[in-house]
């Protein structure tokens, strides 16, 4: 498996911030439209991290205009810009899927630091 890791290591990012499920983060996504490039922000709660190595991904959930939106990002994708940790959540789960059924206030309570 070492050779597999060798290949993956060439593209892996080393300067990623530490974050886990329950944290509130802001992700900058580079969007290419035609020949123009712009940055899109996606801010929400991390509800899980999946996989390891170059194929690792994470899911961010936010409520947009009253509709829950989830996006899965490849952690090492070159299309991702800066990942900023806004709030460290104190949670007891590695996968926060049950947040989907909760109201915004309960989510705040569940992921708050106190």
């Amino acid at each position, binding site marked *: 498996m070492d*050779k597999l890791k060798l*290949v993956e290591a060439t593209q892996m990012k080393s300067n990623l911030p530490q974050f886990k499920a329950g944290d509130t983060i802001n992700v900058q996504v580079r969007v290419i439209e035609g020949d123009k490039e712009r940055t899109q922000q996606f801010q929400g709660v991390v509800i899980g991290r999946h996989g390891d190595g*170059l194929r690792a991904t994470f899911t961010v959930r936010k409520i947009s205009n009253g509709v829950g939106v989830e996006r899965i990002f490849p952690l090492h994708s070159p299309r991702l810009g800066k990942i900023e940790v806004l709030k460290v959540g104190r949670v007891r789960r590695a996968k926060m899927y049950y947040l989907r059924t909760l109201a915004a206030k309960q989510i705040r309570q569940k992921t708050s630091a106190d």
Partner: protein
Amino acid sequence: MSGILGKKIGMTSVFDDKGESIPCTIIEAGPCYVTQIKTKEKDGYEAVQLAFEEKKERRVNKPLSGHFKKAGVSPKKLMCEFRTFDISKFQIGTEIKIETLFSKGDQVSVSGTSKGRGFQGVVKRHHFGGGSKTHGQSDRVRAPGSIGSSSYPSRVFKGQRMAGRMGGEQITVKNLRVVQIIPESNLVLISGSVPGFNNSYVEILKEIK
């Protein structure tokens, strides 16, 4: 057109220039050595015999060790003939590396021995639909159904698809693409999947455009 021997390392995905994730198979291809050149005059056909992967000296029997000695190559585990090389360009004992044969973006086909599945029914082996779960059926869910007519022909036609051993045969996957070549470690990344287990041997052939 040309080819090389390799060993499947495993699958992963990498990001291309546009940032898109491409699923690919890592193959350790070569270095291969030319151990024999078959000629039209002597053998009736033209081919280049390539050998791949080191083998311990004491594991080689006498006839084979003589064959390697003649070529001036250390003993190898696997040998294979390729009819697609221009034999006038090669000499016995020379080393062949991936970067000399392939470049990024090339179309290739990869052959190898597929994973053995054992004795399998028709649903898995030939993608039959099976029977109905409901409508009073009890044991027909994965059954093959009719295998032919009655009094004529009074036999089952040859080639009728039935249950049996599946996998473990030579499979060639065509129209794959070389994603990346890492010459220092003899690794080549090929888009998509490739037959066989990890650590199994494969042949990579360049496709004619």
